[in-house]
């Protein structure tokens, strides 16, 4: 009886294995790129105007085309528009759509679709936030966004293939903003015929179309043969909330790309993974920093902020504590963003100078009392703030209390700090990542007086004047970047932020995959028709 049972069990397990083999189609991976999107269990929406996270924008970027997009070197290149001209005053852009440009069902993409899509992205009834944020420079955008107008006055369909966009102020990054998801092109005819249902099976204007959307599992994208750069490889985007699970799937050959979203492959596996030819690593267009509340003591005093900045040994933090998984930084702009090639004199580690700055501020550790540093509980944050705490304790003698908050609570508190600074956070450990590769996104949009992201209310009139001038300067690239550089220098010296490091993103890409470029902005497919999976 005993042997019989063992036999049964063995037979059963063999049967199960055979079954699993029989059910796994051997040739299933022939021309499908299996790309894992971590941190989500589903896409929020396939409406470009409603997408709100990097995972969603990855899908949107594959499905929809815009007037322009970014190439592998992050330059703005033509997409559905084949060319454009700019008026003398820099306020008017005229785009010519490609001849024969069509949606995934073969219906033509017209100028009216472009105008409608931009208006849709701004329309408060759409319920997205990226449109009002990224398209605000288009004339009439705010009127559409606040519901007082239904037509976007700055967008005109001149004829079938010509779109004219008028903007409020000249801008060197306007085209960059148009590469973002909110400016992608939707089929007006389809969306108007089925206002709520279209986004489940949209006609697409980009390289891919939806073949199958298995809610909560994956979305399979088939090539859109009408796209001007039609790909030959399909893409399956699978949703894996847990990075560890995605990594395990990659290890057993179930995925081709893993870690391409915000968090990369799990830090615990970086050492073993870095030996593989699949391993790719880049410094992200993002910066981790400590922000200070500039409206209340002690950080309303520039010398106190300087003391805190000078007391932090970033090299130790980056190389010893985080074992080189990040790049220490003394400045606001991440490496690779235009103007980051211009030097900035940072506040590097100097405990002597730190104590001197504190003395200059006329305060003592006792008079400052305990300071609170707030942070969101995520990844390595706790380890990092603990190290910061010890730097300030050792070098300044100041006791720093750490306040951990769950992420959404943390962002709510940041928001409160912006709205009501007197009752806000004293200091916070935060991060900013590029929406588009332009210094304006890091300098003007973070630290100009009163802008929505300036939670710490840093304010400097000279800084404001410089960025206001740079933001509208078109054509003279060198001069514009120089202005940002001067502004950055002011913000660094006055510690508008205390920059700490640029995170690295570590990902795994099957070495057989060709035609994908990995840079600080993430994964980019410069030429969709060149995307291939070799053997």
């Amino acid at each position: 009886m005993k042997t019989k049972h063992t036999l049964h069990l063995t037979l059963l397990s063999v049967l199960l294995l055979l079954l699993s083999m029989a059910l796994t189609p051997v040739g299933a991976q022939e021309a499908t790129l299996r790309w894992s999107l971590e941190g989500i269990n589903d896409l929020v929406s396939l409406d470009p105007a409603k997408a709100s996270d990097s995972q969603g924008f990855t899908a949107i970027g594959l499905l929809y085309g815009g007037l322009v997009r970014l190439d592998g070197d992050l330059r703005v290149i033509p997409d559905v528009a084949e060319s454009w001209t700019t008026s003398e005053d820099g306020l008017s852009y005229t785009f010519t759509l490609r001849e024969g440009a069509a949606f995934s069902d073969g219906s033509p993409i017209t100028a009216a679709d472009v105008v409608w899509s931009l208006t849709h992205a701004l329309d408060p009834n759409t319920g997205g936030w990226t449109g009002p944020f990224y398209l605000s420079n288009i004339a009439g955008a705010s009127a559409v966004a606040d519901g007082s107008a239904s037509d976007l006055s700055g967008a005109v369909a001149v004829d079938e293939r010509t779109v004219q966009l008028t903007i409020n102020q000249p801008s060197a990054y306007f085209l960059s903003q148009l590469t973002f998801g909110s400016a992608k092109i939707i089929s007006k005819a389809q969306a108007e015929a089925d206002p709520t249902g279209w986004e489940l099976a949209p006609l697409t204007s980009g390289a891919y179309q939806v073949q199958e959307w298995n809610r909560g599992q994956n979305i399979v994208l088939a090539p859109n043969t009408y796209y001007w750069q039609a790909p030959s490889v399909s893409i399956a985007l699978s949703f894996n909330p847990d990075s560890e699970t995605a990594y395990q799937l990659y290890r057993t050959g179930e995925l081709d790309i893993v870690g391409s979203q915000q968090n990369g492959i799990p830090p615990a596996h970086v050492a073993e993974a870095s030996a593989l030819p699949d391993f790719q690593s880049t410094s992200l267009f993002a910066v981790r920093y400590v922000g200070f509340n500039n409206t209340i003591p002690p950080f309303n005093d520039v010398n106190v902020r300087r003391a805190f900045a000078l007391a932090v040994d970033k090299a130790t933090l980056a190389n010893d504590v985080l074992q080189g998984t990040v790049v220490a930084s003394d400045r606001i702009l991440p490496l690779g963003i235009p103007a980051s090639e211009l030097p900035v004199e940072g506040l590097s580690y100097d405990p002597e100078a730190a104590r001197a700055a504190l003395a200059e501020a006329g305060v003592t550790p006792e008079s400052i009392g305990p300071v609170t540093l707030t942070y969101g509980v995520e990844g390595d944050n706790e380890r990092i703030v603990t190290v910061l705490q010890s730097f300030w304790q050792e070098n300044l003698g100041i006791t720093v209390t750490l306040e951990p908050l769950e992420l959404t609570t943390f962002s709510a508190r940041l928001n409160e700090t912006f709205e009501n600074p007197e009752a806000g956070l004293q200091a916070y450990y935060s991060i900013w990542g590029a929406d588009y590769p332009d210094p304006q996104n890091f300098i003007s949009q973070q630290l100009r007086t009163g802008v929505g992201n300036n939670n710490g209310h840093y304010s400097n009139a000279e800084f404001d004047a410089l960025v206001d001038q740079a933001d509208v300067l078109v054509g003279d690239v060198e001069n514009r970047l120089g202005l940002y550089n001067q502004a950055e220098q002011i913000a660094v010296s006055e510690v508008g932020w205390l920059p700490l490091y640029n995170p690295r993103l570590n990902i795994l890409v099957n070495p057989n995959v060709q035609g994908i470029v990995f840079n600080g902005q993430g994964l980019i497919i410069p030429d969709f028709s060149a995307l291939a999976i070799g053997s």
Partner: protein
Amino acid sequence: MLKLIAKRLVSLPFVVISITFITFIVGYMAPGDPILAMLGGRTDPAAYERLKHSYGLDQPWQDQYLDYLSGLLRGDLGLSFRFQGRPVADIIASGISVSTALGIAALAGSLVIGIPVGLWAGVHPNSKRDRVSMILMLMLYSIPSFVLIGLLRWINYQFYLRGLPSLPVAGWGRPEHWIMPVIVLASASMGYIARLTRVSMLEVQKQDYIRTAHAKGLYNRRVLWTHALRNAALPILTVIGPSIAFVVTGAFVVENLFSIPGIGFLSVQAIQQRDYPVIQSTTVILALSVLVMNLITDMLYMAVDPRVRVEG
């Protein structure tokens, strides 16, 4: 018996309403803001106010709760915060079917293996096979599922490295995706059921009627199958209900680690995203399923044991 069931049925709505209220209030008071989560932490006061209004979050909490409750009565679970405009019922329906299928498979697996192992051990108490199988079952029962998952993945990876057939370590949609989660999910209740069956068998075998049956000269096998097993099945039946509940709660870990789009997975994701309508609905449904399972168990118990029927 009918009276008992009727009593239970009457109390059910009250229990459910209390649950909805508690989940609502906890969600309402919890720190974190769903609109901010939606906006990705950006500050755009106009967009913030607009979204807050469109989801009714600018209303006082009583109104929000009553809105929710009246929707619930009409079978309308509301719209998801995260997946804008998508009905919660839609999201949850697919989750329930996945979880139920997985739960049934796991429960079936644990019964099909657990009961025979328990019987096998119970018939020959204190034998070597009894000891070995029971230690094994105790291990299965006590090992946390996340440890077991790690172990299975490691074994699977060793297979993969040697070019042997390996299983997908996560995901859903293909038949082979079932194997690992079912093993993990079944193992804990399997260990429990096997041990319980064994104890129950030992207990029954001491009874007078078993001795009588032996005395009548019946074959050993006949005594076991017709006299012992039927009576030994009783306590097993009573734990099946709770173990279904156990399978459901266990599914929280398993579904999340295997990326299975079941209701446990949806709940955890919804909690992270502050997707209140989904959180409320999943909680209510989970609570309801536990209540119903308990009710069914009671009914089964009455059906099998005449004594309960009389007392009821």
